[in-house]
């Protein structure tokens, strides 16, 4: 069954792995991925960003249907992977050792 609205069926291959509702899940997924995987997500979603935002704008923010909500989560994942793809060229932030900094509370959606 499709997870995303039919207009965005081209993004369906990324939906299962990357439509993640919380930042800790997205951050863990980023660290567990290879640069090839992060680049593939970025290359697929980035060019579709304006179309996705125009589609999501049709709904009130707090009344997104499930498939639209997953699409929003996919954009959050795009933001998460943009740092390794655009800047670091590696999933892990350089020079951070074992330091951790976790998001404990975030807005929904």
């Amino acid at each position, binding site marked *: 069954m499709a997870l995303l609205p039919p207009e965005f069926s081209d993004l369906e291959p990324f939906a299962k792995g990357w439509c993640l509702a919380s*930042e800790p899940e997205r*951050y863990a997924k980023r660290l567990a991925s290879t640069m090839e995987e992060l680049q593939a997500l970025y290359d697929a979603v*980035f060019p579709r*960003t*304006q179309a996705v*935002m125009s589609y*999501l*704008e049709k709904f009130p*923010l707090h009344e997104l249907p499930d498939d639209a909500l997953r699409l*929003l989560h996919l*954009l*959050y994942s*795009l*933001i*998460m992977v*943009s*740092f390794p793809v*655009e*800047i*670091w060229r590696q999933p892990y*932030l*350089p*020079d*951070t*050792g074992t*330091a*951790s*900094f*976790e*998001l*404990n*509370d*975030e*807005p929904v*959606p």
Partner: protein
Amino acid sequence: MMKPVAPRQYPKPPEGTWTEHYPELGTAPVSYESSISPEFYELEREAIFKRAWLNVGRVEQLRRNGSYYTKELAVAKTSLIIVRGMDGEIRAFHNVCRHRGNRLAWNDDPRVESKGGCRQFSCKYHGWKYDLDGKLSSILQEGEFFGIDKANYGLVPVHCEVWQGFIFINLAKEPEQSLREFLGPMITAIDYPFHNVTERFYYRGDIRSNWKVFLDAFQEFYHPPILHGRQNPVMSNPEYQRMGFYTMHFQIDGPHRVGCTSGGAGGLLPPEALNPIEGVFRSGLFGPWDHADLGIEGSPPGLNPGKKKHWGLDSFQIFPNFAIVFWETGWYLTYHYWPLAHNRLLFEATLYFVPARNVRERLAHELAATTIKEYALQDCGTLEATQMGLESRVVTRFPLGDQELMCRHLNYVVNKWVDDYRRKHVER
């Protein structure tokens, strides 16, 4: 590559430097023994953290009568309950049952902070019950106890006052100053519509560095072009890396201080100065580019205290361990630095936005919040390295530049409070 632009320099006070404008600070190299000594940490706990007003949250965390949360204060070896009573008043208590000392409010793991709503607190151990104003209301098998008067066994209260929706506590038996006296004119001049800026991202990290070593990195703008030099093309502007970055305005008021810098919202920059993601979501390190509607006329009183043109942000450092950073575009963030040991701290960063009205605003907030984490993690890694360098004691005196005035001031105030405490208590 971005066209090099010479960093802007700003006028300094008549003395010639910001540091000499505050002569009590001196200009000599400073010692960081206070950040590596377990003995000094023990003094700081008494001299600072049990005497100063400490921010432990905001009123929005207690929306209804009966809402409460607990706050671990390792620095005072205690846990607090912060609660909004049935009368709407906010109070703070030590989170300890008067019967046999059990921690009163907790879920699953007593070491983890908890929150919720209730009409009274009931101890998990023997069921003693307390009203939300702290009164002991019920003892199971009361007749088995010896001459007990419930009025003498209420929860141990902690001084609690609210300023602009920020809940402060003071662990002293009798605080030496009221909260407003403690905050002083520079801080209490701030009148910001915090109640309209409530969309919240809350980060926390457990970091192996002294709280002051860590705080220092968040109160100077000397390091960003270097430590964060790769993060975006503005930071990697070769002119910044060659010539540095200058703070517009510094101000000190009692133990508190502020540094103000120019604006940097990406909307003003050419596309080549941006990471591609920033252009798409119109946001970045300096927050969303589009101004938020704060719901008030004009700009909030107390901000931009130097009345500078091209003002971008204020970094107010409220002694000892609390900071509020206001951004010109209409959002703010807070930092808290909670000592866990002489070489370890809990770092909290909380971002607050006007609640998003649509997907585009929400995504701009998401990018700002995610960007902050990228920067903060770099600081976290580096400051663990600084702690290690200091602990070697190979070097014992460290030069601070005029751009590091706020670091020098914190060092000065901490030593002053500890010396004052020593004079009154230890040497007597």
